[in-house]
């Protein structure tokens, strides 16, 4: 769409320039006089352009999109085997989860005591640092490796992507839970909820009276 090479390393200034050009071309503002059907089509195209830019400007979203493309999936949640966080991480997090569960029951009874609060806050900080490292690795060296890899090497990198994405999702969920238990300010909570929506660990059944069957995101 943007006429850029299919690589994870994206020239963001160039991407923005091309996005503005496409946005101009397809924005409903410049097609007011068109018949209703044409306007609806323009609106859909415009939405697509916006979504594409949103995906490509963010290095992590780029990787997620690439994984979906490579697996031939159009949908985000449609895959049968959910990306799993590495077992080593799960084991490592076991302790934190325990402490968290304890703190939660404590919080249900009344306020958290200061020592518990401090410990949890400290853990949250270290997890945040880890999350940042993971994201940097994903967007940096790992993405660069993909761009220069021979076709034969790609499946291995793809697997590494998936593991890193799962680790990231897991870390975000734990951070969100910690924040919730700590009763963070609304700003924190907003971020916490976002983390939750990206969670790979807790697939939720969706839908109203009916069930939900996978979500084709564009």
């Amino acid at each position, binding site marked *: 769409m943007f006429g850029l090479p299919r690589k994870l390393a994206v020239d963001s200034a160039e991407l*923005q*320039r091309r996005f*503005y050009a496409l*946005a*101009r071309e397809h*924005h*409903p*503002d*410049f097609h*007011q*006089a068109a018949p209703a059907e044409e306007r609806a089509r323009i*609106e*859909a195209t*415009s*939405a*697509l352009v*916006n*979504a594409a*830019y*949103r995906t490509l400007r963010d290095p992590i979203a780029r990787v997620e999109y690439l994984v979906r493309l490579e697996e031939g999936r159009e949908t985000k949640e449609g895959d049968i085997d959910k990306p799993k966080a590495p077992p080593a991480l799960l084991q490592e997090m076991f302790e934190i989860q325990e402490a968290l569960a304890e703190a939660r029951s404590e919080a249900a009874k009344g306020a958290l005591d200061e020592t518990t609060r401090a410990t949890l806050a400290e853990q949250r900080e270290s997890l945040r640092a880890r999350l940042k490292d993971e994201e940097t690795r994903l967007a940096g060296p790992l993405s660069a490796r993909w761009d220069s890899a021979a076709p034969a090497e790609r499946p291995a990198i793809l697997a590494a992507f998936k593991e890193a994405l799962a680790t990231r999702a897991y870390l975000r969920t734990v951070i969100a839970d910690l924040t919730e238990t700590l009763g963070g300010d*609304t*700003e924190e909570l*907003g971020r916490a*909820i*976002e983390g*939750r*929506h990206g969670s790979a660990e807790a697939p*939720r*059944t*969706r*839908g*109203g*009276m*009916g*069930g*939900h*069957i*996978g*979500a*084709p*995101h*564009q």
Partner: protein
Amino acid sequence: MSSRIIGIDLGTTNSLVAYVDEATGLPRVIPDADGRPLLPSVVAFTPDGIVVGEPARRQLARRPADTVYSVKRLMGRGFEDVKDEARYLPFRILAGEGLVRLAVGGREVTPPEVSAVVLKALKERAERHFGESVEKAVVTVPAYFNDAQRQATKDAGRIAGLDVVRIVNEPTAASLAYGLHRLSEGVVAVYDLGGGTFDVSILRVKDGVFEVLATNGDTHLGGDDFDRVLALWLLEDIAARHHTELDRDCVDLARDPEAMQELRLAAEAAKIRLSSEERTTLTLPFAGFTYRREMTRADLERLVEPLVRRTLGPCRRALADAGLSAADIDEVVLVGGSTRVPLVRRRVQELFGKTPHSQLNPDEVVALGAAVQAHILAGGITNMLLLDVTPLSLGIESLGGIVNVLIPRNTTIPTSAREMFTTSADGQTLVDLHVLQGERELAKDCRSLGRFELRIDPMPAGMPKIEVTFLIDANGILQVQAKEQRSDKAASIEVKPTYGLNEAEVGRMIEDSFTYAEADVETRMLIEARNEADTVLVHAGRALKQGAHLVDVAERAAIETAVAALRAARSGDDRDRIHEATTAVNRATEHLAEVLMDAALKGALGSRRATEILGER
């Protein structure tokens, strides 16, 4: 049909209409016949008809129960949302489900109908200016308005006979107005504190594209709240200083809508004076005593500081969502009348570390920007493009009352998301979707936009594949489409807005708006004359009661004669006669008013002349 599109700022306190002058390429506000650019967003439902703007504003204190102001705060809202605020409003808000309804002038009206009266007045103003009919408009709303509030604004347009071709966010509109000449390329923060709402938007301006990166705000925070805290403080002060008189006369000011409205107006006036002066004197005559006190800017700032502080959180959140820090902001633009308050300017400057722009009149800049957007839509400008975002996350309720976010906040619009749904029971023909807006995890904490009922042909459970497309259009308004994929048949959707009007209701209101047409010009002027007469009669009566002993018998008799003549004239339909009689009473009481004021001020403010203080009122 004319293809002209006007730009309208439908404000909490004042509204304006503007257009882009073809000759200069610059946007201009259209003033009324008397040259006033602002139309007070006040609508009075009188026995003689509907009155809007300045004449309605002037009778706020006299007919508090039938004069609606700040209706924008009620747009797209339910009774539960506004019941706390309703305690301070002198007109009646009816308890009930769905959107707010008001009982004024002996009938029930909804906020969109009240706003429609204001829009219609602006439409007529534009039509007089152009000498031709005007049917299309761009109308601005606070960036943080949700879907229901935007829809309500669109409905108001339809009721007023206007096709609202675009809803534009106020801070973004302001940036367009500045963008024409004054903004260089870079990242801009627009801080918009109006009469009733607060918005902050962070934009990147580059190559003629105005890309909103993030927006945040509070649709219930504005100058009205400043006035209210000040009015409540005055109420306490009056109760403390004059409890003897109040007890003696068994008066409870808090329960007297007229007195409360007087207090609110006095508070507003004092707030405005304190933006340019360090101190001011408030003088409020009540039956039986006159309240006066000196107030300093510091007094006001102490009272409004918590409100100003409440604007800073949204600013920080917008910065965080844009992935920026305050240091990344190149320019800050101030919009909205409340940014004239020096404390607001100081806090904004501290937060962003920049001297904010305020060259354009903060009352007019939004309307000017709306005119620019209207001109873009009409094809008059092709090198500017506005890319706005949706302010709130959109989601659907899933099992357990959890919100499943489909479109996160600050996504560039138009934007869409597709979801697949199926049935859980054999032969199920109805799938119910609950659409919500907000940032909280639980549906009950988010804003319910409405329920969408998808009707499909009966099939075994799990067989149907219904693809639902949620599109947020360039107005920030949600459109939902559904298709059953196996049959490739569009599923019918019935929309049940939680806080909105359905088609039939809007249709009825359009008809009603003709039945209850705004009183014609002649009638309006007569009403205005009568209103003026009423005000003068009240003041004269009060003056006579308080100061009869201060003037001689002849003067008293002259006043009484003039008052009687005005009473007689007022009951008739002769506007000129009412005018003359009003002027006569004014002249007859001039001396008494001065004597009264001097007497009242003696001692407390000995050095200042009464006329100086009168001049301030």
